[in-house]
């Protein structure tokens, strides 16, 4: 009943693909007419079943190309038209897009799952695709296939004409590359490098030994070819880069080796001129090798996560690196970072709970290694990373790093407590408890206290008291104790500084605590020790009572809110959800549900419980006062849910529908084991979101030139005028001058009339006239007439055509200056003439 109302929305940005097929393209785009600089304007990026378009300058997401039904696995620019892009997907289609306007031009149906796409200028109308031919997924067998695109005007075309180039290739898409303008294609698989020459139609293969004398691993990891020279650069698993030359003669090939990376080279890329070679790996250092200068190199260190892919724009102005932590860095050719596109950082695992920063209302969770990330759900944007560990991160595989394991905010958001851990695997566990104070001036958190040995064993959980007056932190640890920490309780230090110190240490029969929770008014503290829940008064530190419902260890604990504050909820490992009444100290009700996560809504009485049963997760929303759920959603997702959070809404919704009423005050977000962040939204919200995305119009499709700036100013003023006059209008009315300007800017330079002719027209277009609209449509009519004229005068010599056209445009200017009546007269005359001609034709 409710699924129609509430739907699950994915909020992930820039999802990293499992096959490392995350390919992004920096595209230079500009008009040739004014001979302007080639500006690198857009970054295209495959993300899930979308291709997203970002602006390099503003780092804003512009729009996305929607249409694929499965993961987009590769994108490549159309070599014939630099405003078009091919994208291939696992759903077996290749689509051709106009990426500036986000229009789907054509769909080619291949019929097999596709895993990568390559194109070359020399092979027009041919796509090279990675196709999986295996029937069962176990023995993967990838083939490189050349597909000839049929020339048909239809939207959807089935591409049948296929020829296999190679039947055994690596699954890694960076192991295939075109060389020297498409004369040959090089592809590597494990220890073998193959070069296929299109002209000779033959393959040369070169192989390396599995290991050399020093025990290095020689397997190929990536390949790139020099744009102008006969040279192939290959990256290897041991971090070596080999430059192969003279491979045309199979016997006389040579290679030189360069070694800087200490681990596998993930990606290689030549700059368009071929002067430099860029390489990147797990170290997150972008290395620029000078081509032909041996060992001279430049570094750009500490870019973020490990580098997965590098691409260079075709004019060599910008480089782009994509990283494992869901990030794209835009780098100038002078080796300076000029932009970062950051999505929700996805580390190896989210160890902390999902939290909401009470001040910024941002979602807080593990981000970069050793950081907490603040992510604004409202704007769907990464805000900032808070460095918790404050240590240099060493990019090395298998190194035991400090990770932020726990974090908690107090109710006002002025304190943040974090626990960082290292050595989970080995025996000696190191951990620190840190307390951060919010600094009003810098608007960020500043380290206040570091507690080195807070407990003798790992901290399991912690929570802040929920009262506004006094802040107190309670930590529970595997050493069987819980500790209460207070601010400034240490009387020995005479300076009145706000450091935190231990206030109370408690334990219960040396049992291991499992969870802790403060009541809504923080007059009670519940700490569960294995099967027993103990209730403490934080003021006197007296144990008030114990609650127990064997068998089964208590897993989650939470107090009811508002009208249900007399209830305490607990979940056990033996599939029991219990609710105690704290006034009678007796069990109110219990229900047999396997609950993996219990999440109370801070703004209402509602509690959400995720239950995992027979490989799918169900969601129940209920009030503690009654054991009947308010809302049930079976099969929310197929993975276990361990983290969830209620996000308070900016403005309350007025939903009367019973099943979605619980979403009125706050929104439920939850994280699955696959690291997908999911949320519930109502139908009305969905509609609003769709309409807002439609409103998003990209306006700056014209290259920035001094001329554009001059016009831009003019346009801005006009737009301002427009918006002032029609504040309610959805889309600002197209300024009248802009049609002329657009035409001016988009027509190829060689067909334009002389500047002296254009000048008056241009100046005219800048004037704001009342009859502008009328003139416009008239002029359009004129154009169509002109075409007719052309068709009629086909018989005339081609030489004169050019002249005529110039003439036509002069006429146009003249006409513009003359009165409308005169023009009408002329038109009448012209139509008369054509009619006459018809008559003449028909008579004989």
């Amino acid at each position, binding site marked *: 009943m409710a699924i129609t109302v509430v739907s699950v929305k994915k909020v992930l940005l820039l999802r990293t693909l499992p096959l490392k097929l995350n390919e992004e393209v920096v595209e230079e785009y500009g008009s040739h007419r004014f001979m302007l600089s080639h500006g690198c304007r857009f970054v295209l990026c495959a993300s899930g079943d979308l291709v997203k378009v970002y602006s390099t300058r503003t780092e804003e997401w512009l729009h996305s190309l929607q249409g694929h039904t499965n993961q987009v696995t590769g994108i490549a620019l159309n070599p014939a038209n630099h405003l078009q892009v091919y994208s291939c997907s696992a759903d077996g289609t290749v689509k051709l897009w106009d990426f500036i306007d986000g229009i789907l031009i054509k769909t080619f149906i291949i019929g097999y799952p596709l895993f990568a796409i390559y194109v070359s200028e020399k092979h027009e109308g041919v796509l090279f695709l990675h196709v999986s031919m295996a029937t069962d997924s176990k023995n993967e067998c990838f083939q490189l296939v050349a597909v000839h695109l049929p020339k048909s005007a239809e939207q959807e075309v089935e591409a049948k004409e296929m020829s296999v180039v190679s039947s055994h290739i690596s699954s890694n898409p960076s192991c295939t590359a075109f060389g020297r303008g498409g004369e040959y294609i090089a592809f590597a698989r494990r220890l073998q490098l193959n070069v296929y020459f299109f002209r000779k139609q033959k393959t040369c293969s070169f192989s390396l030994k599995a290991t050399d004398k020093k025990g290095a691993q020689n397997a190929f990891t990536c390949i790139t070819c020099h744009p102008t020279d006969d040279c192939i650069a290959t990256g290897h698993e041991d971090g070596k880069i080999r430059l192969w030359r003279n491979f045309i003669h199979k016997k006389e090939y040579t290679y030189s080796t360069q070694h800087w990376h200490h681990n596998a080279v993930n990606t290689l890329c030549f700059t368009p001129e071929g002067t430099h070679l860029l390489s990147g790996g797990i170290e997150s250092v972008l290395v620029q090798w000078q081509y032909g200068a041996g060992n001279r190199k430049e570094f750009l260190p500490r870019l973020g996560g490990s580098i997965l892919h590098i691409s260079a724009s075709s004019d060599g102005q910008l480089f782009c690196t994509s990283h494992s932590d869901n990030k794209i860095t835009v780098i100038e050719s002078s080796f300076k*970072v000029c932009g970062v596109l950051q999505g929700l950082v996805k580390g190896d695992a989210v160890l902390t709970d999902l939290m909401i920063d009470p001040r910024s209302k941002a979602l807080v969770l593990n981000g970069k290694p050793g950081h907490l990330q603040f992510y604004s759900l409202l704007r769907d944007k990464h805000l900032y990373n808070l460095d918790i560990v*404050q*240590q*240099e991160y*060493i990019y*090395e595989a298998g190194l035991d790093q400090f990770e932020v394991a726990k974090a908690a905010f107090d109710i006002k958001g002025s304190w943040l407590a974090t626990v960082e851990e290292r050595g989970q695997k080995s025996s000696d566990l190191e951990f620190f408890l840190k307390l951060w104070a919010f600094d009003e001036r810098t608007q960020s958190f500043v380290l206040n206290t570091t507690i*080195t040995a807070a407990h003798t064993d790992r901290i399991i959980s912690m929570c802040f008291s929920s009262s506004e007056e006094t802040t107190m932190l309670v930590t529970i640890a595997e050493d069987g104790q819980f500790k209460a920490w207070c601010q400034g309780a240490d009387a020995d230090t*005479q300076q009145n500084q706000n450091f935190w110190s231990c206030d*109370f*240490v408690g334990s219960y029969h040396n049992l291991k605590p499992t969870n802790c929770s403060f009541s809504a008014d923080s007059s009670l503290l519940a700490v569960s020790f294995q099967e027993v829940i103990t209730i403490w008064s934080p003021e006197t530190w007296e144990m008030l009572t114990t609650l127990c419902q064997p068998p089964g260890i208590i897993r989650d604990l939470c107090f009811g809110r508002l009208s249900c504050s007399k209830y305490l909820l607990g979940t056990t490992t033996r599939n029991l959800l219990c609710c105690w009444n704290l006034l009678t100290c007796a069990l109110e009700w219990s229900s047999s549900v396997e609950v993996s996560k219990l999440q109370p809504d801070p703004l209402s009485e509602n509690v959400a419980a995720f239950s995992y049963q027979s490989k799918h997760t169900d969601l129940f929303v209920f009030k503690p006062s009654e054991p009947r759920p308010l809302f049930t959603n079976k099969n929310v997702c197929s993975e276990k849910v361990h983290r969830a959070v209620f996000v308070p809404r900016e403005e309350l919704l007025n939903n009367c529908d019973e099943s979605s009423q619980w979403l009125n005050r706050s929104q439920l977000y939850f994280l699955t084991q696959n690291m997908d962040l999911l949320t519930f939204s109502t139908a009305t919200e969905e509609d609003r979101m769709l309409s807002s995305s439609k409103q998003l119009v990209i306006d700056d499709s014209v290259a920035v030139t001094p001329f554009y700036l001059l016009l831009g100013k003019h346009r801005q003023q006009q737009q301002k005028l427009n918006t002032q006059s029609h504040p309610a209008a959805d889309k600002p009315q197209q300024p009248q001058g802009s049609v002329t300007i657009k035409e001016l800017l988009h027509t190829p330079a060689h067909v334009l009339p002389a500047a002296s002719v254009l000048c008056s027209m241009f100046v005219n277009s800048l004037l704001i006239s009342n009859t502008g609209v009328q003139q416009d449509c008239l002029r359009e009519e004129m154009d169509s007439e002109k075409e007719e004229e052309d068709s009629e005068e086909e018989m005339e010599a081609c030489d004169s055509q050019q002249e005529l056209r110039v003439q036509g445009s002069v006429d146009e200017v003249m006409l513009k200056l003359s009165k409308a009546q005169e023009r009408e007269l002329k038109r009448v005359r012209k139509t008369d003439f054509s009619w006459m001609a018809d008559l003449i034709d028909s008579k004989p």
Partner: protein
Amino acid sequence: MASFKPTKVPFLPKLGEKVTEETLYWKNYKSPVQIKEFGAITKIDFSPLPPHNYAVTASTRIHIYGPHSQEPIRSFTRFRDTAYGGRFRGDGKLLVAGSEEGLIRLFDISGRVALRQFKGHTKAVHMTSFLSDGFRVVSGSDDLSCRVWDVPSAVELSSLTEHTDYIRALAPSKLNPDLFVTGSYDHTVKVFDMRSGSSVMTMQHGHPVECVLLYPSEALLVSTGGRYVKVWDLLKGGQELVSLKNHHKTVTCACLSSVGNKLLTGSLDRHVKVYNSSYKVVHNFDCDASILSMAIAPDDEALAVGMTNGVLSVRHRRHKKDKETLTSRRRRGPSYQVFVKGKNFVPRQDDFLVSKPVKQYLRKYDKQLKSFEVSKALDTALQTWTRTSKPDVTVAVIIELKRRGTLKNALAGRNEESLTKILNFLLKHIFDPRFSRPLLMVGDIVLDLYQQVFHQSPVVERLLQRLMEVLGREAELQQELLQVLGILDTLFTSLTPRKEVAALAASPVAQESQLQAA
């Protein structure tokens, strides 16, 4: 792109006393000047006039020392027997002293011979003093009497015999010339008023009183005796304000600092303790022998302590001026002006500020860590100066290397000289609870790496043997401490009543002791 994050040197609090402003103030004394007298020093008194000479009563003579001289300026030696209680008059021109034979002598500071001799006491006079009018002298004697003498005529004005034991403490009021306080071995402190001719107030100290002292406001009275220091509120009719038990032997003397009226007490247990205004001990001076007398100069310029072995130890205050002259002599670099040149320029309101890119300054070991030169970084951290004066930096670098997983590489391939450096560092700091964990790890790795080659170097072998010995001793100590802890635990549990909550209360204490043990 983030910049390199330097190695973080953790600030770990040292166990032991906390540094406060008061301790800094009282620590700011130079090392004591020792002057040998002929016998036990029973009384020291500073002249109220600058240059604040002080009279030291020891054996049969009274010496007067200048503020910085080590030789007496003047000495009064005309005593037949032991002299006692030499004290200045309020104008610093006259000095009065009692003696073993019962005579009280009055000296002019510039003269040698006694101006007056007051006869009347039948036993030794341990305490003498001028009353605040300056014309009368009061004395307390072992013959249980307290007498007041007229200076001009040298006659006895009155005799008060209210005490029932030796009178060993006396303090005249500075505000009222007719009031004085006496303390006696009969455990009482009495306030006498000359106008009534009898005691007006009596307080029970509970122990033989060794010293009494009035606060400048004369609302508070301090008496010392036995191991106790007691403060009485005179305005509340002699109510006990506080009783302090910080010494473990008889407290013999007390005095007040002139800055902030801090109480100082000296005891036979060889300590001088300084109390703050809430009577908590903030500082402690250690001496070589039992302390009999003590005095502090106006403005706390000097603290003089007299001991049973006849040694007078004088501590002078250290001034900032001294330090500055010292440093200015040492420094030969360019002056301060050179460094601040152009940097103290304040931009005007409409100036456009172009900020320079901030350069990140890194320590040498950080630079080496940045370029992954781990062995070199460890060498830098083990340089003599860092090793000795900032061991926490060295340990921080070791921890950083451990975190990077390259500690083994950094320790490998060392020669005898650099290995001795590491082993010496281990020997010195391995028991510091702040450092022991990483250093034990270093020790393990060193043993693993160099097992085969240790016997080649006798130096390294000897160091290792020492390390083994001290480690063995430390292990024994730890074991003993654990035993003590066990005993304490049983004591605590048997002491507390059988209640669950009480058992929990014991655990923080146990933890504290664990901390100390660690």
